[in-house]
């Protein structure tokens, strides 16, 4: 065997305790598209054996100019771009953007609309967490868990589909309200889905939390102390995994969250296992929220009755001249929703943490009334931007094989990170 002979020759030439031969560092690129990654991101690592000694993270592969597009379209048209931010939980993005514009307009939804939004947000949150935990489990060999969780996500997306006709690109809110009321029997189906989700969570809990391989690969890996997590601007399940009980739904309540009975789960160590446990506990809390919403949802309209913002009913648009004119005024370019000059920041709790929209309305040279029919600037504060920024600090000093579970635990979503 000539190859083996060559190898033994090299081995003979190098003394076994030669320091240079022992300490050789290797550069390893992971990504931009890697089978074990949840998106396109490049991690450049410097390895010493299997240990990561230095690393750099590079993003931007999915940049779609979200913020620029929002400046070019009217207030309601921009909602469709927000779908694609966190594409696993689009309703939360829709709600966040719309509520920021509503804050600028000074509108408040009638109770039924608020309950519907809360329901959709929690359905989206469970589907987000299911995807994250399921994918992380699959990467560590738990393919069954992934299939079970995707089955659960399927039920949730069917609910969303039944409400708005789409599964992922939902565009389910409008400025000033909701486009339609709930379909018949939807609330009963909600309760059935919650029951199914609880069963799935139980099954997966048994499969993962009692699994030695899973636990040992997650425990004490990529530890982030609370102080450091705050300095990095972490929010959401990752921050709560580090032991800080900060949740936008509790601390800056919006919709009907402050009227419901639920808790904020927190971890202690801030390692991968804690982030997983927090997500599992949060899904249970979301189930509780959904059940309470179903029990308490009141009747009445789903949109506010401001004719300058909300489109008239279809029967009015096609049935009388007032409705037709009203519809035209809201649809035509240069008319539409007129938002007065100002700026607001509105945070909601997204699947990954604080999803904030900083929206500026500023009259341009064509404006006669000091208002504008489109945003001057829409800034989305993506929750996973801050966690990915600290990724290098988390993986340095651990093994190459730890990169995958760590990356899974911070739940990077490309659409939201790169926008």
């Amino acid at each position, binding site marked *: 065997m000539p190859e083996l002979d060559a190898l033994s020759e090299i081995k003979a030439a190098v003394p076994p305790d030669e320091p240079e031969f022992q300490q050789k560092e290797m550069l390893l690129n992971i990504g931009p598209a890697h089978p074990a990654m949840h998106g396109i991101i490049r991690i450049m690592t410097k390895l010493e054996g299997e240990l990561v000694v230095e690393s750099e993270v590079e*993003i*931007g592969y999915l*940049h779609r*100019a979200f*913020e*620029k597009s929002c400046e*070019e379209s009217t207030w309601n048209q921009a909602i469709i771009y927000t779908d694609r931010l966190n594409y696993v939980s689009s309703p939360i993005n829709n709600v966040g953007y719309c509520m920021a514009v509503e*804050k*600028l307009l000074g509108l408040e939804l009638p109770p039924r609309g608020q309950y519907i939004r809360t329901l959709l947000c929690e359905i989206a949150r469970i589907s987000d967490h299911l995807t994250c935990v399921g994918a992380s489990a699959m990467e560590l060999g738990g393919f069954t868990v992934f299939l079970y969780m995707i089955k659960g996500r399927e039920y949730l997306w069917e609910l969303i589909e039944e409400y708005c006709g789409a599964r992922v690109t939902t565009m389910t809110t409008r400025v000033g309200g909701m486009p339609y009321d709930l379909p018949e029997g939807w609330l009963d189906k909600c309760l059935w889905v919650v029951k199914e989700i609880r069963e799935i969570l139980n099954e997966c809990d048994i499969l993962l939390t009692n699994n030695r391989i899973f636990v040992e690969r997650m425990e004490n890996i990529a530890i982030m102390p609370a102080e450091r997590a*705050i*300095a*990095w*601007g972490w*929010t959401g399940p990752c921050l709560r995994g580090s032991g*800080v009980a*900060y949740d936008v739904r509790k*601390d*800056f309540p919006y919709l009907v969250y402050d009227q419901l009975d639920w808790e904020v789960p927190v971890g202690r160590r801030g390692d991968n296992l804690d982030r997983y446990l927090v997500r599992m506990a949060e899904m249970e809390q979301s189930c509780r929220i959904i059940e309470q919403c179903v029990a308490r949802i009141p009747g009445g309209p789903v949109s506010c009755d401001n004719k300058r913002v909300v489109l008239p009913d279809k029967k009015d648009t096609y049935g009388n001249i007032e409705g037709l004119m009203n519809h035209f005024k809201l649809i035509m370019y240069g008319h539409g929703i007129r938002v007065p000059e*100002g*700026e*607001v*920041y509105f*945070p909601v709790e997204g699947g990954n943490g*604080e999803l*904030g929209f*900083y929206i*500026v309305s*500023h009259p341009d040279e064509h404006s006669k009334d000091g208002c504008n029919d489109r945003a*001057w*600037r829409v*800034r989305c*504060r993506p929750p996973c*931007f*801050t966690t990915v*920024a*600290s990724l290098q600090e988390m993986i340095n000093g651990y093994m190459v094989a730890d990169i995958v579970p760590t990356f899974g635990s911070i739940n990077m979503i490309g659409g939201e990170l*790169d*926008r």
Partner: protein
Amino acid sequence: MSKFPEHIAIEKAHPTAVLDWHERFGDRTMIVEAKQIVEIVRILKDAFGYDMLVDLTCVDYLPRRPRFEMVYHFLNVESKTRLRVKAQLEESNARIPTLTGLYPIADWFEREVWDLFGIKFEGHTNLKRIMLYEEFEGHPLRKDYPKTKRQPLMGPQN
């Protein structure tokens, strides 16, 4: 309206640093001198516990002068208070000191603002593009960036 406690404390140390302050739509905002941003934020962080830099961005108000406005959102995680700090920049001197010494996350936020708006951050050690590639020309979120402009095609040319 009455001054914020943050404003009073900053004024004590730097009398001319705060230019304006207001509370609109429930958001408290302070407009400060751009050159002194690091000293001001240090007071906010040490004395008022604004330990999280939630967001950092920029707004282009072309043709108004000063043209750019840097917007910082701070959060006190303990007491759950928020504060927005703004600093205005002239187009001819679009630069502001970096906050990377106070908040590690400012590193990426500032790189993003540099990439999309072309604001220089003095003292930033690694100020390079983050969303777009190095060969990209111009800063696309500026209002005068031509929307239909084509950029050079990178990669292998067959």
